[in-house]
């Protein structure tokens, strides 16, 4: 019996051995079984941040909202600084696509803002631009309204040219000058046929189809004459681009092509087309055109802003967004010079912001990457006097700044800035409506 026991104890593995065998089998088995159930706790793959940020501006500003404070996304498409009632104090006009009106923010003697709608809410929809002009030559300012009809893309004939006619006491009557148009983005006034009255030029943006035409003033009624058939005209600034004493028309066409045209006034309402700037980059995102003598050499240059892309449904700042200076070389030749790269650039306003005697440029962004903290919505380009520019960030909030204007609102000798927010796409974290940045004396340096 004892021998049997002895022999069995010799062949039977010890507990240690069994445990080790068990472990040797179980460790890989456990790993194999657990493998598919193991969570991923590693870092997410690195994301690229292409949002635009710049060094903080050495100039200082005090920010203030004028009019109602925004509690939900607003849609301001245009702001202008103008002494509307000619009382010596600058006022602000704002086109509002939520309330479907043009607001007049009148500055009172005590520098308060009185808000007044120039039209009822149901007279037109989605005003894109307001131009103050005494169209009927009766000595008071009227307002020309470019009616988009919808800020969203459509080719429907929902645009209009509307005149808010001043009855003399700043009561306004709405008069449709032309309808059955696709979306109208801009209307400018000038004596285009040299007969002493004001004619109009219209940017019928549309979507797939569009036009540029001028409206001949025929003693109060207007006859439209086609200049160019092309979709996507944003702005049509009028100036004497060839220095020959009459008014020409510039236009930025953006939808199918990205180009800038000058329509040279040949007299008697005839305009010769010249394409003065063009890029094969159909995605440039041209968003605005401003006439200005940037280098102060006595001719009209142009500032082209680019930043309006609809990448699928949402936008993303592109490396070619920013501001291009089209320097007038004479003879309707323009040389393109990039003066800023800034994602989602939508509006430009030339002004001597630092008071050093040259022209700086304000830029606002509609489509920076607003999810990223600190991304710039308002910047200025400091001119060193030789048209070399340094970009300074003024603010990152509010976001979606579609329009910017400038003027000495508080009469302290320094230019102040007004901008409007067009919140069309999320995120809606940095809401704004009509915002003013008052210049402060001195710099932060």
């Amino acid at each position: 019996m004892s021998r049997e026991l002895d022999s069995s104890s010799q062949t039977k593995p010890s507990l240690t051995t069994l445990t080790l065998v068990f472990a040797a089998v179980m460790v890989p088995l456990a790993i194999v079984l657990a493998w598919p159930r193991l969570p991923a706790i590693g870092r997410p793959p690195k994301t690229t941040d292409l949002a635009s940020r710049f060094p903080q501006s050495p100039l200082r500003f005090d920010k203030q909202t004028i009019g109602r404070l925004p509690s939900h996304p607003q849609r301001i498409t245009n702001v202008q600084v103008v002494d509307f009632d000619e009382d010596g104090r600058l006022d602000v006009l704002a086109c509002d696509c939520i309330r479907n009106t043009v607001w007049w923010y009148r500055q009172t003697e005590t520098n308060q803002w009185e808000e007044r709608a120039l039209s009822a809410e149901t007279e037109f929809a989605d005003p894109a631009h307001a131009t103050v002009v005494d169209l009927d030559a009766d000595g008071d300012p009227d307002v020309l309204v470019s009616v988009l009809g919808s800020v969203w893309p459509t080719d429907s004939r929902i645009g209009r040219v509307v005149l808010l006619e001043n009855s003399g006491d700043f009561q306004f009557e709405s008069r449709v000058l032309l309808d059955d148009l696709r979306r109208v983005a801009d209307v400018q006034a000038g004596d285009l046929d040299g007969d002493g009255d004001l004619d109009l030029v219209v940017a019928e943006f549309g979507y797939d189809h569009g036009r540029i035409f001028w409206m001949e003033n025929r003693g109060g009624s207007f006859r439209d004459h086609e200049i160019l058939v092309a979709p996507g005209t944003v702005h049509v600034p009028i100036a004497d681009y060839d220095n020959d004493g009459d008014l020409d028309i510039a236009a930025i066409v953006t939808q199918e092509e990205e180009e800038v045209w000058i329509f040279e006034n040949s007299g008697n309402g005839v305009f010769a087309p010249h394409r003065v700037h063009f890029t094969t980059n159909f995605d440039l995102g041209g968003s605005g055109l401003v006439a200005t003598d940037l280098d102060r050499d006595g001719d009209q240059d142009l500032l082209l802003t680019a930043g309006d892309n609809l990448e699928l449904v949402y936008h993303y700042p592109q490396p070619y967004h920013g501001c291009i200076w089209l320097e007038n070389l004479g003879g309707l030749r323009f040389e393109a010079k990039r003066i800023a790269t800034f994602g989602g650039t939508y509006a430009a306003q030339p002004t001597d912001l630092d008071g050093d005697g040259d022209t700086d440029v304000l830029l606002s962004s509609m489509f920076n990457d607003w999810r990223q903290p600190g991304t710039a919505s308002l910047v200025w380009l400091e001119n060193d006097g030789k048209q070399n520019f340094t970009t300074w960030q003024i603010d990152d909030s509010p976001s979606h700044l579609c329009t910017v204007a400038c003027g000495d609102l508080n009469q302290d000798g320094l230019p102040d800035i007004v901008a409007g927010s067009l919140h069309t796409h999320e995120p809606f974290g940095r809401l704004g409506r009509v915002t003013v940045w008052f210049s402060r004396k001195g710099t932060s340096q």
Partner: protein
Amino acid sequence: MNRTQVSLLLLVSIEMLVGGWAVSRHLYRPRPPIPDLTEYNPYTSQQITDLAEQVDPDTATDWADLADVYLAHGLFPESESCFRRAVELKPRDAELLYRWGFCLSSMGQLEEARQRLRDALTAGYDPPADCWYLIGRTELRSEHVEEALAAFEQASKLAAARFELAKVDVRAGRAEAGISILTQLATELPNAFRPHLLRAQAEAMLGNDSVAANYLDLAEVCSAQLPTPTHEFRKRILATLDSHSVTELVNRSIELLDSRQVDQADALLQTAVGSYWDADVEDVRASVELHRGNLREHRQQLEAIAEQDGMDSYRMWRIGLALSAADQPADAAQAHLAAVTLNTDARANDSLEQLAIVYQKLGDHQHANHYAARFRFSVAMQLFRQAKLIEARSVLRQSVGTDDKYPHTWFYLGEIERYLGNTETASGAYSRCLELAPDYGRAVAARERIEK
């Protein structure tokens, strides 16, 4: 410890070391990025977060599907990083490479986008023409015209690529070469407007102004887009967006309302969105009140939406319908008039029809006829834009038969007759238009064109 035990111990130790190392590596594999969406609609935000949390970090298609959702919501950097990870897991997947390339091109990362698209071609992307077309477009964005031309030549199976070739020709002043391509495109896709617009440019360059004008006319009544791979991709992304956003919730609620499950629709909206304000959701909530027969609440809800998000023809039209249902025809007429004046979308046309009905009800036959004529005009315009000229003319004739004082009706009658080659009738229609509106510029120009 005997030799066997030592060996076993060694084995277990090695297993644990290697296993631990492998487990640790596996545990620390990348997890999907979850963007900060606190400033977004909470329903959409939740949908996106849920999807990101469900991603199997070892499955390339899961990463790519998440990338699509991010792309649809404009979360481009996160989308790009997900595509990158998907391709790490399946490096030879041509479809993934193509999608990653598309995402990079949306972010303006053009050189890298082209590289990924070329990788997709190497991996056998089918159809290769789609890849070449996108490469060509990114080359254009980089202002590399020669490279773009080479890519479009490779993609010349696609009408859109040939259109780009024609465009480059026309831009370079080679109008005849452009016209030769455009003629073929017009045969293949007669209803696409872009080739006609470009043809007009080319003909104008050659001094053929009247031919150019004819092509502009043709473009005006053509509404089709040129089919492109970009459009297909966009369609897919939009469908993704619809299925992962408030739109999905709105669509589900409308389905419930259509099947008379009003309380369920209301509950769904309430639980999903809570107190977050969204115009589309509020619009369905207004419909909930309508289905419950609460006309006043329905109207108040619509007015509240307009207060926050602005008034448009659609909202005014709905308010007008609510007022009609509440037997307040005079107020309904005011609402529909406002919808027509605002004229923001096709609902303005529906309000024209409603105005004809409401004024008939009020016994105002003159106004009823006027709006019935205007409604017919709007119907005719839809037909005109679809190039259904005979049908459009018939409706316009009915319109002027009811009210002949609307100049636009006469102008478009003139246009249609001119398109149909009936110049004398066209001229007569333009003249009637100009009697009503002497400065109607397009009518003046069109009549002069006929006289020439």
